[in-house]
């Protein structure tokens, strides 16, 4: 009965954290690369300008995740590319006319409002000196150089219109081809560890790293025209939202987009500032960038991180301690329980997060559930070990005294197992502080957000802004639990460390 209540509470918590704000706010999404985040900020700013409560779920993930979030109503709008829609989402072989695309999207409850203005096509890039030395200008020139090292962004590596299609279309012979985080591919080019990568034609890095874009002489790459997508039900839910969003149609050219990318990636400006500055110029709108400041940002991340760790740990304690006691009392059931929570622990954190997205949506929900699952094993195992490790003569003494089972648990078994149980909770808490940084991948916020943004922008300062507080928090949690142990564990069974 009590278990059921706790489970219900947990489900409600995940629901509240993941889904509740959807009814009030308009949620803009973006994919996890800089241009998409900037465009997300542009959309958010436009909606806020119109006086609508808005939130931007930044850098949610790859195309699939963000598109599905739009289709299922997790988010309300984002900027997509026509080539991606055709090849990645609808898996069509040839480009479709805009009308057909519009129709397909409409049947999924999504409106294709129109193009923003610029195209961001795929291209291949090579460091200029190397390309010049080998005499490579066109993609078909690559056929004569099978030893080249190719490093592509993970998404390009996998999607049908990416490397597999390109290789077949040109008959490319290279063997050393791997997918990496795209920003890392640029740095590999710079360090001379790789020769070639995929580019987007609006990338700020083309000029920065001195890359030559190879001519697509067989016209392989489809055209990626940036288009605004929003949910068909948005107009009904938030009057004025559609008009606000559509102000951007046709207003962002290639030059503007490349300029904004460079301002973020090369000059280190915040996406929000860059978007605001652009809207001021382009629409002549009196937009003030909502500049959060480093301290405010740090406080927000701390709050989000503590919430993730605290809630998931609390739920895990409420479930795992009774589970550990039951496992200790019923050895056969205990083996099953330990086996199941053990399996939970073996699922990679990232995979667990991704499994949770279809069930709990994006945001804090899936992160809380994943962290909860991760916290179970150390606490269940230590509770089990603590209770089964009590010397038999002590149990016999308690039984012979005439203490009934409940009183025995409360007065003898739990107090004796307490140091072991606390050690399990401490382990879970410290693991959770680290694990919660991954929550940023599904929009849960926390210290992972500056870390991910820092990797994306190649900004060490930003990475440290997440990494240092996370490390300090882990140490702090460890210290706090040691203090707690001294406070609640009686002197008689304290480990002698002082």
């Amino acid at each position: 009965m009590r278990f059921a209540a706790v489970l219900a509470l947990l489900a409600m918590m995940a629901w509240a954290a993941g889904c509740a704000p959807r009814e009030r706010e308009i949620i803009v999404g973006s994919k996890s690369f800089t241009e998409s985040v900037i465009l997300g900020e542009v959309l958010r700013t436009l909606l806020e300008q119109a006086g609508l409560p808005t939130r931007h779920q930044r850098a949610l993930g790859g195309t699939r995740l963000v598109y599905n979030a739009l289709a299922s109503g997790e988010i309300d709008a984002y900027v997509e590319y026509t080539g991606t829609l055709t090849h990645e989402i609808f898996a069509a072989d040839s480009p479709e006319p805009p009308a057909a695309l519009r129709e397909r999207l409409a049947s999924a409850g999504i409106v294709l409002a129109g193009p923003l203005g610029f195209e961001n096509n795929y291209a291949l890039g090579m460091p200029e000196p190397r390309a010049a030395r080998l005499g490579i200008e066109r993609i078909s020139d690559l056929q004569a150089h099978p030893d080249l090292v190719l490093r592509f962004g993970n998404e390009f590596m996998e999607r049908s219109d990416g490397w597999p299609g390109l290789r077949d279309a040109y008959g490319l012979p290279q063997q050393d081809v791997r997918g990496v985080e795209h920003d890392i591919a640029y740095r590999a080019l710079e360090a001379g560890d790789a020769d070639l990568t995929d580019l987007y034609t609006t990338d700020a890095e083309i000029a920065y790293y001195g890359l030559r874009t190879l001519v697509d002489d067989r016209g392989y790459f489809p055209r990626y025209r940036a288009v605004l997508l929003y949910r068909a039900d948005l107009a009904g839910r938030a009057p004025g939202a559609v008009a606000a969003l559509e102000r951007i149609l046709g207003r962002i050219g290639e030059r503007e987009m490349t300029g904004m990318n460079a301002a973020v990636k090369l000059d280190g400006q915040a996406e929000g500032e860059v978007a605001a500055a652009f809207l001021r110029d382009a629409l002549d709108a009196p937009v003030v960038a909502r500049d959060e400041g480093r301290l405010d940002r740090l406080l927000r991340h701390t709050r989000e991180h503590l919430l993730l760790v605290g809630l998931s740990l609390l739920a895990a304690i409420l479930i795992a301690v009774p589970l550990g006691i039951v496992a200790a009392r019923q050895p056969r059931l205990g083996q099953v329980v330990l086996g199941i929570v053990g399996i939970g622990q073996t699922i990679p954190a990232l995979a667990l997060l991704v499994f949770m997205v279809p069930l709990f949506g994006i945001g804090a929900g899936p992160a809380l559930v994943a962290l909860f699952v991760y916290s179970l094993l150390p606490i269940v195992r230590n509770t089990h070990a603590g209770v089964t490790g009590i010397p038999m003569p002590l149990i016999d003494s308690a039984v012979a005294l005439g203490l009934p089972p409940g009183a025995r648990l409360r007065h003898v078994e739990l107090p004796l197992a307490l140091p072991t149980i606390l050690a399990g909770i401490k382990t879970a808490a410290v693991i959770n502080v680290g694990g919660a940084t991954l929550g940023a991948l599904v929009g849960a916020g926390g210290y992972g957000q500056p870390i991910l943004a820092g990797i994306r922008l190649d900004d060490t300062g930003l990475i440290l802004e997440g990494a240092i507080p996370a490390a300090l928090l882990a140490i702090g949690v460890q210290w706090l639990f040691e203090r707690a142990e001294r406070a609640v564990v009686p002197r008689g069974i304290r480990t002698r460390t002082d």
Partner: protein
Amino acid sequence: MFRLDQIVKAYDGIRALDGVTLDIAPGRTTALIGPSGCGKSTLLRLMVGLVAPESGTIEFDGRPLDAGAIPGARHRLGYVIQEGGLFPHLTARGNITLMARHLGWPTARISARVGELATLTHFPADGLDRYPGELSGGQNQRVSLMRALMHDPEVLLLDEPLGALDPMIRFELQEDLRRVFETLGKTVVLVTHDLAEAGFLGHTLVLMRDGRVVQQGSVDELMTSPADAFVDRFVRAQRSLHDAPGARP
């Protein structure tokens, strides 16, 4: 007080008790004695209901000691396990008063009873708020005894209460135990492997071997008319100072 009839108890197919029939007289001290593994501790655990016999019957105060009767019987029994079995997370006082607090005794009654027991067992008052880990072995045995006596049971069951103590403290505690038994006049069943101790504390000795009772009687009876060669050997196997090389005859 206890009546055991044809008790059999086996662990993993090996019979720890192999048909024990025994009467424990009320108001007397009975010492169960014998070599290691003879079944004397198992017999005591049976009386406090920690183990159940495979066959045979056990009666406590005229009524069968079955699963239904055990919880009630435990309030009339005090048990001291080997090595004392004190809870390390509770102070001496916490150990002694745990059950009384669970039963909701008034505080005044609890502290008065603890005071009585400390006087009876010669336990220093300032030791009451120490943890078992901070007390000596002898003092811990006194705490175990106080815990068993707290609810003033009719029967006291002691399993090797002085087993792990050094000789001087053991000697002193034997004196104290005898005085306590005489003062209280309770039914006492005591397990020991030391014949001198059994003779010093017990009115009746029960000598066991391989899960059976070999002989029952006073020390004198065991020495003067041993039931068989084993009893004779067991009685003779006790060293005295006269055996020391160079001792005067």
